[in-house]
């Protein structure tokens, strides 16, 4: 079967863009998570017509297909199951058109997030969603995962920055959802597609909204003697009626790892540091800075360092953005979690995160989007240690449960994929899940688009019945 599918694809695409040898297939077994599957064929279309041909070929052979961008996803979304056909967008990377006045651009899905911003920098514009992986993740992946980033606090996640999308559906038809017209009558199918994790179809073109660069930006770093004090400062800033461009927190272990890596003069003795960035017009910005430098110390900030120039600002951000690289120097493996809790619950949930790590004898570091309550506990370990993976998974599950029990949600930006699929019943009743399954069926009645992700199978639903009643919100 695989050979017949591959042969058909070689004809429809070209022989050099269809791969079946096991070494190459091995590269596509998983995304940036630890969850492995197996692909039967990997292909690299150049055009929408080739994506269509690939989808139709998969359908004819009854083989599921998985869209793959850069493979930086952390939830197993791009992990191929059951010998799926992987349709990689890496050769569809063009910016097709830019409207600098009305601030929008049509791009191909394989375009890397940061390359899009680079392309429009000279126009004074940028693409607002800025995942920490922005150097390597694709716009198509951002759309499928509705990705976020530090600067989504003020500007919103990907869904707010995608105006339209051209999609190849699982029956091989091409449809444009949304577009340049802002409010066409009818269902918001574009909105439904964003965040569909490759299960509604494959995006082949994306109309993105571009955002004006701020005329002035100010970046501050505050340190705290306790994580709680840092978290309370976050709430106090928001309660004062400000929405900073970014509000990011790192705990002590993380700061120490980063400092050792980049030597930015970070306060390594503090329990937590808060990176606050405000952006906008100069007078409003100065007023916000003035209030923030009062609110911080009033809630226990030791020192407030304000970046004096662009170089210092870049250095402070480098600390935040290289956190994952820095951590890799401590232990070879890490497992990055992603949950959201109400801001006021941050101190309590962080306390629980530390207790959970203790209980499972793991090292945990926190580097996260504090402004929107988006936790990223990072469990670091050496997977050669016997039995460590069981502890990592058990601790991860405990963190997810603690977050949901605190009134939070399963994922703020990484998505559900395979990783959190079986946790969905923690947040949703069967009727809620049935409605999501109905959405999927409307877009993909064949069920061939990236199957077995996001929605738990009925068997897994039963599994969640041992959830303590207190965990339901």
């Amino acid at each position, binding site marked *: 079967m695989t050979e017949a599918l591959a042969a058909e694809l070689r004809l429809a695409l070209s022989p050099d863009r269809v791969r079946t040898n096991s070494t190459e297939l091995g590269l596509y077994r998983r995304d940036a998570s630890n969850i492995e599957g197996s692909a039967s064929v990997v292909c690299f279309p150049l055009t929408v017509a080739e994506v269509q041909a690939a989808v139709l070929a998969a359908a004819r052979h009854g083989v599921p297909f998985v869209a793959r961008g850069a493979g930086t996803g952390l939830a197993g979304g791009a992990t191929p199951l059951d010998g799926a056909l992987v349709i990689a967008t890496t050769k569809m990377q063009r910016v097709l058109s830019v*409207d600098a006045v*009305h*601030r929008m651009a049509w791009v191909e899905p394989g375009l890397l997030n940061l390359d899009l911003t680079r392309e429009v920098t000279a126009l004074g514009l940028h693409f607002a969603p800025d995942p920490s992986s922005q150097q390597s993740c694709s716009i198509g992946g951002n759309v499928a*995962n*509705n990705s976020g980033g530090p600067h989504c606090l003020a500007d919103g*996640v990907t*869904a707010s920055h995608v105006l339209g999308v051209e999609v190849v559906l699982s029956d091989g*038809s091409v*449809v444009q959802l949304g*577009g*340049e017209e*802002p*409010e066409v*009558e*009818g*269902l*918001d*199918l574009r*909105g*439904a597609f*964003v*965040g*569909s994790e490759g*299960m509604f179809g494959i995006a082949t073109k994306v109309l993105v909204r571009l955002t*004006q660069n*701020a005329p002035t930006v100010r970046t501050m770093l505050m340190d705290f003697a306790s994580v709680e004090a840092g978290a309370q400062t976050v709430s106090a800033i*928001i*309660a004062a*009626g400000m*929405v900073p461009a970014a509000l990011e927190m790192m705990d002590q272990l993380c700061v120490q790892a980063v400092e050792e890596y980049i030597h930015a003069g970070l306060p390594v003795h503090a329990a937590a540091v808060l990176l606050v960035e405000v952006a*906008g*017009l100069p*007078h*409003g910005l100065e007023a916000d800075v003035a209030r923030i430098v009062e609110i911080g110390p009033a809630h226990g900030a030791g020192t407030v360092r304000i970046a004096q120039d662009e170089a210092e600002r870049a250095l402070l951000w480098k600390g935040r953005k290289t956190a994952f690289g820095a951590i890799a120097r401590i232990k070879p493996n890490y497992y990055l979690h992603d949950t*959201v*809790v109400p*801001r*006021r619950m941050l101190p309590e949930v962080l306390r629980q995160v530390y207790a959970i790590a203790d209980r499972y004898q793991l090292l945990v570091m926190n580097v996260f*989007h504090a402004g*929107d*309550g*988006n936790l990223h506990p990072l469990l670091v370990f050496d997977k050669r240690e016997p039995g460590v993976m069981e502890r990592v998974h058990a601790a991860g599950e405990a963190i997810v449960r603690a977050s949901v029990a605190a009134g*939070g*949600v*399963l994922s*703020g930006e990484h998505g*559900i994929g395979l990783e959190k699929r079986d946790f969905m019943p923690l*947040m*949703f*009743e069967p*009727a*809620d*899940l*049935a*409605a999501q399954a109905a*959405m999927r*069926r*409307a*877009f993909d009645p064949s069920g061939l688009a990236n199957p077995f992700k996001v929605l738990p199978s009925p068997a897994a639903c039963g599994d969640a019945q041992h959830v303590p009643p207190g965990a339901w*919100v």
Partner: protein
Amino acid sequence: MGVIDLDAFAHEVGVDDPVAVAGLCTRGGGPAGVRTVAAPSGILWVQPDEMIVCCGAGTPVDELVDALAEHGQTVALPAGGTVGGALSVGHSDHRRLGYGPVRDVLLQARYVSATGDVVKAGGPTVKNVSGFDLCRLLVGARGTLGFLGEVILRTRPLPPSSQWMSAPATDPDTVFTRLHRPVSVLWNGTTVWALLEGHPFDVAEQADAAGLAACAGPPPLPQGSRRSVPPAAVVDQRGEFVTEVGVGIVHHAEPWSAPPRSARVLELTRAVKAEFDPTGRLNPGIDV
């Protein structure tokens, strides 16, 4: 703080006969000649430091806006009708350029489905990608997929100052491109209006830079049709109109029929409706 009895609302919606839902009927309410229900109303809670509010879908937007103002916040929904009506119609008001579309406001909804079940879509936090984005599908669905009962909405801080400005302009883009994140820019072919918010000094400097002078308010919006066009096509309008520059909404004195949607979009739309309401009992006759 109130209590919202969704089970009672579900009971009212029932399970088999045709049923319509209406808010304040500023957009015509539900279809005529059908048993009509109203969503529960009342504000359940306001959490200013989370920037969220929970209320019944039957709550008048004006009441919600007043309650939020006490906390220095507001919500980006058009005034006049109910929260459920505003969401289900899905039309933003003239502040969309700065405040974003209506569909970005809804974080979580509990709605009554065609089978009479209470179903939850989305989640209570501002950031959430747990599962498919059912909220986006409900906004603008005109009550054809489910009747909104209780919603959690994203709020936004009220600005320190807010001022309408205007200037004569034959090309709105020259003004539009000089402003940093204006809340609204309107143009009728000869005059441009801009709503600027923020620090009063910034507002004044922006106005100077764009050659705008303070004015009383926006022009009346022609009521013949509300057209959705590519923002670049705003300058090509003829007749009596006011356009939302940078957005692509045109308020025109003349009626209009929108260009037809593609066959595949209509097919997808019908497939969604068939999944959510196979017998067509919710708001029968409304074709989204």
